[in-house]
């Protein structure tokens, strides 16, 4: 295993109640690398993340985690139990007794230092997300796992969020694994896109925006921070996920 690999999935399989959720999935994340995992709903993205985080078990295959690994996890858009009175400060102190300085600093970094004493239930979706990000950062992670961070965020908000995530990568030198169900718009700073639909359909660098002048003309500044990823599959999927060859030849399941 290369020494700069932080986390890797090797030939992961997952079957649940006779249904194949993941099939021979390989994936690796290196230091300071941003990997975006995309795929339609039900593609197994969340299952894969859970296995990588150690929250779930794979049926077969292996997960490599570097020995010194500290993972910061930002779950999918979530709501915090509203029956429980909790300030942001208390919430951030749930996992360990961080000092007020540490907490103030990290809240400032994610741009929400003003809500330290607010009740967590009163936060907007975007604020809550940043608090969850702050919570992950407090662990001094060398990997940050973000499940659908852009869900329900408008394009301007996405741009700001992606800028923040890139800045976090630069400042903390941590690897970032991000999940998105948006098949076409991924973060520009992404080093590698992994397209998952039970199996890994294709991987690669997102194409550079400048190669798509039409797109740029259409969306202008709103696309700053975004890139369009074009998929290179040698097969298509029917609605039920079955593989259909697109090249009039056996595609078997080797991807180019």
């Amino acid at each position, binding site marked *: 295993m290369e020494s700069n690999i932080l986390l890797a999935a090797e030939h992961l399989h997952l079957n649940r109640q006779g249904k194949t959720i993941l099939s021979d999935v390989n994936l690796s994340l290196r230091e300071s690398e941003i990997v975006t995992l995309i795929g339609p709903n039900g593609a197994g993205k969340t299952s894969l993340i859970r296995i990588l985080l150690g929250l779930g078990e794979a049926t077969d295959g292996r997960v490599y985690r570097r020995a010194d690994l500290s993972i910061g996890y930002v779950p999918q858009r*979530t709501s915090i139990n509203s029956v429980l*009175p*909790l*300030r942001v400060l208390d919430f951030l102190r*749930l996992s360990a007794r961080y000092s007020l300085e540490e907490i103030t600093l990290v809240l400032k970094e994610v741009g929400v230092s003003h809500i330290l004493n607010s009740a967590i239930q009163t936060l907007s979706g975007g604020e809550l997300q940043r608090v969850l990000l702050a919570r992950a950062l407090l662990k001094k992670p060398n990997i940050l796992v973000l499940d659908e961070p852009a869900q329900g965020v408008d394009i301007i908000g996405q741009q700001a969020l992606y800028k923040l995530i890139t800045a976090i990568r630069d400042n903390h030198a941590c690897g970032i694994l991000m999940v998105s169900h948006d098949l076409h718009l991924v973060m520009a700073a992404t080093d590698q896109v992994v397209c998952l639909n039970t199996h890994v359909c294709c991987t690669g660098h997102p194409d550079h925006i400048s190669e798509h002048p039409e797109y740029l003309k259409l969306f202008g500044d709103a696309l700053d921070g975004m890139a369009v990823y074009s998929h290179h599959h040698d097969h298509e999927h029917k609605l039920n996920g079955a593989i259909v060859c697109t090249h009039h030849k056996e595609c078997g399941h080797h991807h180019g």
Partner: protein
Amino acid sequence: MDDFIINALLAGTGLALLAGSLGCVVVWRRMAYFGDTLAHSALLGVALAVSIEMLPIFGVAIIGIVLASLLFWLEHRQELSNDTLLGIMSHSALALGLIVLSIAQNQGANVDLMAYLFGDILAVSREELLWIYAGAALVLSLFAYLWRDLLSISVHEELARTDGVSVGKTRFMFMLLLALTIAVAIKVVGVLLITALLIIPAASARLYSRTPLQMVLLSIFFGILSVVIGLISSLHWDIPTAPAIVAAASLLFFVSNLFQPRA
């Protein structure tokens, strides 16, 4: 003041300490029905204890622990939803308890069913008082030990898990603590009204709290206040004590809703 009033006050306060703190977690984790199930099973514990001439509080504790373990085990291997499962357990235990109790009575045991359904706080003995406080001390120290983990899993189970909190263990431990709390409560408010003391003071406290700890302390305060008001009105108007305590708790809840801070 008469001895029995002081004993009643002490017993009620002991229970309010327990019910107030654990009740907050019951409210946070939406476990009211679970509390009810444990409470109903308490009758079976009483019946068994009476049959073998043991102090009821032990019978209730043992049956509660058995039931909590059974439920915890079933949760993971059942197609049925949790509330159905709880309903089955709750009523099976209640029916079984009534049957065992009637067998015990037929064999000449002298049991006052009403005393266990609604408690008999004015007849708490020195020995029982001792056990109530011993139980309270045990439960509260374990509760304090589990506090951070309980809080974590109540806020967000998945996040707690990534923090390395053993979610299953913490949940199971809390179920056991709840079983012990019900054992302590049986003499004070009885099987049918225990859940009220777990939930109502905590619900009142929620309105005025900004932090989890504040909610626990306020919930204990509301619980003790309910005991005092209930006891006084029970003596003054000659009404049954346990219902008076619960009615006082409800009254405090409605009043505190009227004077809710920050709309």
